[in-house]
């Protein structure tokens, strides 16, 4: 009984530690904000952390894995196993509300909920994106592909500022 309680306490502590691990490419977001931290378990003496990549080729995954390990080692945890799962595939719907607010404050337009996209016609605007700087909805897509796999490039027609959109996925 007592050991169960201890286990619960250390799980909470581990989750707290992991929730502070940030995405190296968008350092304002933690892995919990992003929704890529999928599970934390203690099996026997081993801490099992399960994460999922945002995009298949996301180069940040190796670094995130390393940072998770370091965060735990730093606090004295030793037996750590980090698993990567692919299914169910990650979606921007798993991003937390706080995460979306942090993104906007950082100058990146946060992802819309996925249901707004219903197979747009070619060349048609897929969705309305709000400028994270002046809040205008009068914006245009410059490129579906941006500085990282998860972002698209847009420009505000009012304040003229180009900005990244964390594309809905």
């Amino acid at each position, binding site marked *: 009984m007592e050991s169960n309680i201890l286990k619960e306490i250390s799980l909470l502590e581990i989750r707290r530690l992991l929730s502070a691990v940030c995405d190296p490419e968008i350092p304002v977001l933690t892995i919990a904000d992003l929704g890529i931290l999928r599970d934390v378990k203690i099996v026997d003496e081993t801490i099992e952390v399960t994460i999922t990549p945002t995009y*298949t*080729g996301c180069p940040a995954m190796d670094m995130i894995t390393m940072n998770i390990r370091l965060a735990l080692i730093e606090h004295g945890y030793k037996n750590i196993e980090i698993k990567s*799962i*692919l*299914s169910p595939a*990650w979606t921007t719907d*798993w991003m937390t509300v706080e995460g979306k607010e942090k993104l906007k404050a950082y100058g990146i337009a946060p992802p819309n909920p996925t249901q707004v996209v219903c197979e747009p016609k070619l060349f048609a605007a897929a969705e309305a994106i709000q400028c994270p700087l002046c809040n205008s909805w009068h914006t245009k897509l410059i490129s579906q592909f941006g500085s990282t796999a998860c972002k698209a490039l847009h420009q505000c027609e009012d304040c003229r500022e180009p900005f990244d959109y964390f594309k809905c996925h």
Partner: protein
Amino acid sequence: MNIPTIIDSKERLADATSSPITYSENKEALLLHLADTTLILSQRNSAWCGHGPILEQDIAITNISLDLLGQARNFYQYAAKIINEATELKVAAVNFDTSAETLKEASEDSLAYLRTERAFKNLLLVEQPNGDWGQTILRQYLFSQFQYLLYLQLQQNGDQQLAAVAEKAIKEVIYHVRWSSEWVIRLGDGTQESHARMLNALDELWPYTGEFFMPAEYESTASIGFELNSLKLPWLEKVTEIFEAATLPSPKSMEATFMQTGGKTGNHSEQLGFILAEMQYLQRTYPNSVW
């Protein structure tokens, strides 16, 4: 702290430790075929890095390259796992270059860097040269449109790991299809010059599209869970629609084209050797080097 919803029972574990592994030569070949195809196209596209016609499109094609590389890694990792779990004998049967003594255990790197040309099972289309921007765009479109239909089916595959890779990748493939369709239309229905270049690209590439639908032994209905040839009609329908908008000849008018085959079983065009020579040079010259 808000930790997103945890794994439901349907969740397929991608690290294959928990899913039962069933080794078969066909599965190994199928995984290598899928891996090689995405790796070689990724390698081709990455050559545009720093050379794209404008910055945004340079970034787009290299993003696609990165997505494809990620898919290739997933397939190679899985292939390496089943190879290693099979007997020693099987390891020897993958046609490793025997001069590479360092090779004891298969890994994603050994499969990508230490197999020879005849062991590669990629589609012939993806090894064709980049040519001009039009040719690169058309190659991407013809492939992505096919890949979308293929992964749609593979998502249902009985092998949960394979299905998970496809399920993950298809979301990215949808971007590739959209982007390349728009560019085919822009260039086909663009200027006289761009139209002429697209016609030229079509002449170059069309003969490599027949191979998509001709199953190799490892793509039998029993292996992949559906009839490969059944993708042909939906593919042709989509391509016809896009070509029409792009004012390019309809696929129907090219029905008599002689189709090249062989890539799936290791009989490649002369192009592949050059790609491998460049891509594998470092690992073969300085074995086990890392960066």
